[in-house]
């Protein structure tokens, strides 16, 4: 049975609580105000990419995926291709337009949440950290040279040394709603 401490008067207890609350109110207010004054940038700059496409290494036998399967792959829920090769995620940095689109359109989370999600998954030992890139060319080269790699690029950057995967029957995913 729960037996709270009763020998101290309620008045004295409230006085102590108020005393401490006074000390921390200023700090709380400061943190809250700073957060409201500087909210995260809600605007997503998708202007650089109208359509995105999912690319894999030319040796990958997979041709089609559903959007649900793609999400499972990028969330680290699916670790291997049907031929049992390890899936290696190649992701544009969350600060880039394609990185933001990957977070929003594929993972259904904000760019910051995507970074945090991957950090947590790696820290929990569930997935291998995705390879992150600032340049589309670097990502393309990595996928072209790495069996099992999968990445997302602007459709206009697709080249012959890469294979585009159809998502729900389409080679491109619209990056705008």
């Amino acid at each position, binding site marked *: 049975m*729960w*037996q*709270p*401490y009763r*020998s*101290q008067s309620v008045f004295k*207890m409230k006085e*102590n*609580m108020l005393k*401490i*609350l006074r*000390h*921390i109110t200023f*700090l*709380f207010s400061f*943190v*809250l105000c*700073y*957060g*409201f004054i*500087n*909210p*995260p940038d809600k605007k997503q700059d998708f202007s650089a990419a109208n359509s995105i496409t999912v690319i894999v290494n030319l040796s990958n036998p997979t041709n089609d995926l559903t959007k649900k399967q793609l999400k*499972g792959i990028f969330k680290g*829920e*699916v*670790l*291997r291709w049907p031929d*049992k*090769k*390890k899936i290696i995620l190649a992701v544009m940095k969350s600060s880039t337009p394609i990185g933001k689109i990957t977070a929003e359109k594929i993972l*259904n*989370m*904000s760019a*910051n*949440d995507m*970074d*945090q999600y991957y*950090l*947590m998954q*790696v*820290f*929990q*030992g*569930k997935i*291998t*950290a995705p390879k992150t890139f600032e340049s589309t060319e670097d990502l393309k080269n990595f996928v072209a040279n790495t069996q099992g790699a999968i990445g997302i690029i602007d459709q206009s950057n697709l080249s012959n040394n890469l294979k585009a995967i159809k998502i729900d029957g389409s080679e491109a995913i619209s990056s705008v709603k």
Partner: protein
Amino acid sequence: MKLRRQIISIFLLTACLINAQDTKIRGFANVNSSYREQGKGAFAVGQYDNFVTSNITDRISFLGETVFEFDEHFVLDVERVIIKYEVDNWFEIKAGKFHNPLGYWNNAYHHGTLIQPTISRPDAVKFEDEGGILPIHLTGLWLSGHDIGKLKFGYDLALSNGIGANHYVADDNDNKAITAGLHIKPLDKLEIGVSGYSDRLNRFESNVVSGDTLKSPISIAQGAFHIAYLGSKFEFIAEDHYILHSYGLPVKQDATTNALFAYFGYRINDKVTPYFLYDNIDFGKNDTYFNGLTNQKFTLGIRYAFNYLANLKLEFCRQEIVNVKPMHVATLSFAIGF
């Protein structure tokens, strides 16, 4: 000297791993400042956490976590050493020292406080060296699978040295501990699970809580239920742990301790998250193994994330212990990852 040897060993291991394929080294650190009622305000260096992952082959990988922390002196603790063989998402074999897959929090959040939503871990899942009552770290073998089928079913089965064992090289009895857990993710970002742990401590073994010699053998059976939802607006984690201690002859009695916690967070935006944590541990009357005082704790806090690698947390906590004056503590913590 011992610390120096440990540090050299860690650096040698790290150097070897760097030469291996795809090795990543990360770190976490935090600095806290706390103000305790009728006490002195103080600054404190939290844990400095080194985290290494390495892909040795397509299927074999390594994860190591080493923590420098102050415990009378600065000590180096190897908190996790996991060698994993991955067949697929439905079957992985892990060996080494790992966090007990009991409940949700213990396996989701480790030593880097940056990632966990509060400054301190809930009382039920506090680390052993911080007065925790659950077996947080285990050394042994761990089989697991995750995201199987439509319900994203997952399982854990661990065979380990158990409570009272030296966490690195030896067990102090022949009884191995078993942890088993099942969980599902019926919705995106929602996990529901049950888990259990069983172990047996022999008579005359040293009590890991009090240090006294056990007067009777103890069979330990623990059951846990958890639900966790980490959405874009709301965060909710709740766990309930039942711990049954069956004391053998000459004591011959059972005692049940119940530990639970519930965490709620509301994300105002990507940066600001006010939260509330409720802790309660109800020690069994005759549970002489724990010999603890029933207590509950209310924590109100706010988290400000500069980005995913830096956050500031401010907490006000009230702890009520049976027949003891309530305690109030305000804590500010700055945590980073690199």
